[in-house]
């Protein structure tokens, strides 16, 4: 076992990760924080000889990963790790870890906010008074719908999907869920029923996505799958933008197949097309990838990220490896 320098490099998201830097420095690690605007290739070159690299939102593909000669652990400071080419990392003998448990409540709360905003047409209801000075919602009333008793289809019953299911049960929603990696009894444990994706799409009044983005589920909702949904369905996405083909969703909103979409994530992040016509529809609500936000969540994200880095630097096994097969503790 080689002696690792006690060094960590932070590629981006310096503001959010400031408490992590403090925590690491207090544990006598040397931390390099790159300036905003550094390209991934430059970042990888700077990171080449650092044992632990912490990534905010930057894309690390095989080009970048091939430069990391001394790095043993890449930490994605967040839940989704689709910005990292895990296969390339595994091939290079580099562990990849994520930080999965800092914002489960927040994303579930935000999801319910998006569901309620869509069903009650909240943005339009606020605008009628604030902008038009009308003390009624006559124009939107036919579209305002009772939540109680409707069917919510949750795609992906991981930590967040389960937290959404618990909240939905409080509203008297009929929860069904699709998760190819979970046995049916775990769906029942949170008050839901396990169904296949086809049934979920065909029978849900509200579809909410809570799965990670993978090669297999890219554009899970596209022109083809949107042909199979219940007419008037509400689409919620607080997971990853790449799960939805925005052109197809725009078409489904135009034809009335989808009655409302509330999206916290958009295809093409971190630089989504903010001129896409879907964004100017009155029946679309967008928040800018803020579902995870809370004071507690952002603090826990930073501290949990620092602790993961320290585990590795101290010769202990990182807690949340996504490719444990990449190497062993002794490498």
């Amino acid at each position: 076992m080689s002696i690792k320098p006690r060094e960590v490099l932070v590629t981006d998201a310096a503001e959010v990760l400031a408490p992590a830097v403090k925590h690491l420095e207090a544990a006598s690690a040397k931390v390099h924080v790159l300036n905003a605007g550094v390209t991934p290739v430059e970042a990888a070159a700077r990171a080449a000889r650092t044992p632990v690299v912490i990534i905010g939102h930057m894309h690390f593909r095989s080009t970048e990963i091939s430069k990391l000669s001394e790095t043993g652990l890449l930490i994605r400071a967040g839940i989704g790790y689709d910005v990292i080419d895990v296969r390339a990392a595994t091939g290079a003998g580099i562990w990849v870890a994520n930080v999965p448990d800092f914002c489960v409540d927040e994303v579930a709360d935000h999801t319910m906010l998006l569901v309620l905003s869509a069903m009650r047409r909240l943005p339009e209801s606020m605008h009628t008074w604030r902008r038009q000075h009308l003390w009624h919602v006559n124009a939107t009333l036919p579209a305002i719908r009772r939540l109680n008793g409707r069917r919510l289809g949750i795609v992906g019953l991981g930590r967040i999907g389960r937290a959404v299911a618990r909240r939905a049960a409080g509203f008297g929603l009929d929860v069904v869920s699709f998760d190819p990696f979970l046995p049916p009894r775990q769906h029942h444990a949170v008050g839901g029923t396990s169904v296949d994706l086809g049934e979920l799409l065909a029978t849900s009044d509200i579809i909410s996505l809570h799965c990670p983005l993978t090669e297999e589920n890219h554009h899970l909702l596209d022109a083809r799958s949107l042909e199979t949904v219940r007419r008037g369905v509400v689409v919620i996405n607080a997971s990853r933008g790449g799960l939805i083909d925005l052109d197809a969703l725009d078409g489904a909103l135009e034809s009335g197949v989808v009655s409302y979409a509330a999206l916290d994530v958009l295809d093409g992040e971190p630089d989504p097309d903010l001129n896409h016509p879907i964004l100017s529809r009155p029946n679309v609500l967008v928040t800018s990838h803020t579902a995870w936000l809370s004071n507690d969540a952002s603090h826990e994200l930073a501290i949990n990220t620092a602790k993961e880095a320290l585990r590795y630097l101290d010769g202990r096994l990182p807690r949340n490896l996504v490719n444990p097969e990449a190497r062993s503790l002794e490498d």
Partner: protein
Amino acid sequence: MKSESPVATILDPLTWSYDWSYEIERSILAEHGVKLIVPEDEEHRDTLVARADVVVSSSLVHIDSRLIASFKRCVGIVCYSSGMDQVDAEAARRAGIAVTNVQANTMEVAEHAMALLLALRRRLVPMAAAADSGEWDLRLFPEIWDIPRLHGQTVGIIGAGRVGREVAQRARAFGMRTVAHYHLRPAAADPLLPHLELQDLMAASDNVVVCASLNPDSLRMINRQTLSAVKPGAVLVNIARGSLVDEEALLDALNSGRLAGAALDVRDPEPPDGSDPLSGRSDVIQTPHMAGASAGALDDLHRLAARQVIHLLKEAGRL
């Protein structure tokens, strides 16, 4: 005397609302041999209410003792709402007239209360504005950063009737603790929704949700005194009646920073005055008295109102 068919009349017909008609009531009542007559103007109304067996109220007109005295044959008043505060309850009781409400939208109101609470706490208005601005980087929008975690917070329900209990059930699904100030204490205490005196509830709650009915005892129950007890940084949601809250005291509590925000579906008066200091604020969310609104609730409202009319007529032996 059953020779003439009983008559129900609408005291104050809604004409402005979305697609509002009395066809559902008319057809249900007709099945029971009850005639629904909708007045064409005020004079017609005065004639009609004098001989109506049941008067239906849309809350546009205050039903005081003088008006009640003009109801010559009336056995009951049906309110098209959960609240019955537009009726002088004491005068109706003296005249032997039953007053009932229509609870068609308990779920809608509870859902709207949670929508307002979440929108306020998660800063939906500045978040949506940020997404509209053409910039995606949330570091540019410090106004949306300060969000507390709701899990572990306390929700104080003022008025734990049907709506209040539904709000509490939903709040608990978010991992929040719930306490209540009951108008009528239940025979058996609910361990998940314990009673607190009003000042204690204000001090214990991160989120106060006003669900109480309006009566002389509850008028302006949220006032300078109650707001002085509020937990610093708490927020207030009101989906019940505007005059439960002293709006000047509310404004001062927001200005002093003691209250972090308010979400109001109801106001005193409605609509608010043109120079309303509350509506334009970034820490206030305002919806135009629509917590109970939904397409389904509207159908239920018409249906249940007709059933109440029939129920009152049967109780009084007129059917």
